């Protein structure tokens, strides 16, 4: 399968096929890269990434570090004269990269916190203190406070195979390795 088709098929079910199909009509004008805040500071080149995807350069796109330098700020998405849904295409390409094992350890770690605690950024003791000082409940009424709800998140992760995606070890409740 062409990489373009793979991207459309991956993102299509959630984001809509028409939405994803816009990938094909890029005319390489460079408006995206020109306005990309990340591009000014880092090596990400949005237009080149789209072109590489169109040219079926699957491995190059998936393995590149630049793919992960998009902050999903949607500037390119908003300005594209051909309405190419760049940011959503980027997210989708990352989904594929994830399945191919290109997730960074730091990302997998953040994801594991959600399975473990329900939060990407869990609470700590200092904040508990602050909360008390401000007159808030010491533990927020989230999965931190509702253990059943946390179970729900964990079942959900198993159902969508999110645990496998990030290599989560249910024994150690941590990443494998």
């Amino acid at each position, binding site marked *: 399968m*062409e990489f*373009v088709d793979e991207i459309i098929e991956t993102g299509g079910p959630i984001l809509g096929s028409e939405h994803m*199909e816009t990938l*094909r*009509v*890029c*005319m*390489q004008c460079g408006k995206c890269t020109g306005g990309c805040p990340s591009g000014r500071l880092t090596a990400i080149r949005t*237009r*080149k990434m789209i*072109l*590489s995807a*169109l*040219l079926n350069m699957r491995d190059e796109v998936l393995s590149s570090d630049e793919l992960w330098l998009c902050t999903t700020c949607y500037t390119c998405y908003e300005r594209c004269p*051909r309405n190419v849904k760049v940011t959503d295409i980027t997210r989708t390409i990352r989904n594929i990269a994830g399945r191919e094992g290109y997730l960074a350890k730091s990302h997998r770690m953040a994801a594991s916190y959600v399975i473990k605690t329900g939060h990407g950024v869990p609470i700590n003791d200092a904040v508990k203190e602050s909360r008390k000082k401000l007159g808030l409940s010491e533990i927020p009424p989230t999965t931190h406070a509702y253990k059943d709800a946390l179970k729900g998140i964990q079942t959900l992760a198993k159902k969508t195979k999110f645990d496998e995606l990030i290599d989560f070890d249910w024994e150690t409740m941590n990443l494998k390795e």
Partner: protein
Amino acid sequence: MDKKTGVYICHCGLGGSTETEEILKKLPKGSIVKDSQYLCDITEQELLIKDINEKDLEQVVVACFASDVHRSIFKKVGDEVGFLPNLIKIEESDDVVEKIIAALDDLKPIKPEETEVDVNPSVLVIGAGIVGEQASLDIGDAGYKVYLVERRPNIGGHMAQLDKTFPTLDCASCIGTPKMVATGQHPNIELLTCSEVIEVSGHAGEFKVKVLRHPRYVDENECTGCGICVDNCPAVVASEFNLGVGPRKAIYIPFAQAIPLAAIRDPEHCLSCRMCEYVCDKKAIRFDQEEEIIEFEVGSILVTTGFELFNCDLRPELGYDKYDRVINALELERLCAPTGPTAGEILIHGKPPKNIVFVQCVGSRDKNVGNEYCSRVCCMYATKQCNLVREKVPDAKFTICYTDIRAFGKGHEEFYNRMQDEGVIYLRGIVSEVYRGENGMMKVRVENTLMVEPVELEADLVVLSAGLVAPADTPQLANMLNLDVGDDKFLAEAHVNIRPMETRVKGIYMAGCAQGPKDISDSVAQTSGAAAKATIPISFGKVKIGPEDEVKVVKETTATAAPIEKEVTG
């Protein structure tokens, strides 16, 4: 220099003034030198007339920016005072004073010597492609006689060879055939095929035309186009209409919908077995037919001689002459067309092509081959051809190698967008060379300029998007009609912006690709415009002509082509 002279310098609304003293010194007493804002404007012309009458000026010099545009507008002055101003073209960089003084030396008084003549209510149209047909139909519909002269045995031109047209994907036959039929049947249109204009003299309103009619060796009126003669002819040669992709006989009908629908014998390849004569029920074969010269008079002339395809051999690095997997776009068009030699089946070495690379700008935007201009249609026809091939080979992959995508017409950008959506890859970079790889497939060397990387593409079919060039005999035609030819070798218009259909000869107009490449829509709109220009004097009934409007007969034969169609498409 003894005449009282008025010198007027037009500043074209820019303001400013000239050192008039210098010029005045050179002029006799009573002369004047004046600056002016917009001399072409009606009030200033009235002032000019007033000056001439009050100061008894004997001649007038007008210095302005666009003298070529302005000649005709001082007529009112001429009518009032009996002579016309001498126009001197100045440019911004010129020293105006110097230029005027230099010009003063060889001034001749210009008398308006216009006479009004009646206009012959008929028009000669040279060339019967879609453009010539449309013009003839328009003029014919307005009720005037049209002589439509076509060199080939049939009308329809290049459009008859196309499968579909961009951007609407109308099938070319569906548009072309009715036009051809209507042209063939129109009571006001006299169709002269296998014919060439060989001499033109006279002037707007009354041109005398000589047409050389080559023998067809078949009586057009008797022949029904049944094709029995073709079936029985033993001599087989390559078909010009199908660009050599298919065969034809020595007696043949170029294509099924040809107008007039009559066979033609090709004496060069005919074996003179007379089989055709024997089998023809209508006894329409005429071995004894000879050239004839037809003479008539017309009021206006319209040149719609179209274009030829660029000869891709002139770009040897692309391998057109070397590899049969490299073809030009018109050949692909014949392969796609249901009326083509393969009935629309696209087979390259017996297999449908899966990897097709289009090479844009072959013979266009290329000073190297002397064609600096853009051919206007190749970006869109390549885009269209991707669609045509995809219909028949659904899993084929397409790459179009381009410099700039020029999708400028109505609906073009949308079409480009749509084909991208359907998976056509546009690769920015002009193909450098094409060679054969070890597996027999073509290799295309090109830089992907957006990746700044040279790449090699593999293709089982390479299509060269050949540009449009002026017909080879344009210089002779121009010579015969006293017309100018542009740097691009197409016929030159009187003014690129405001007189795009007129030529420098009054009464002779042009349209379509004869004046430069354009797509069908633009051509058809323009040809109606040219038809209007040709019809206006006829409708009005009278036209004013001056001595310079006479077409001088060029004494040399300009007949260039044999009766059969000689397509130099390379």
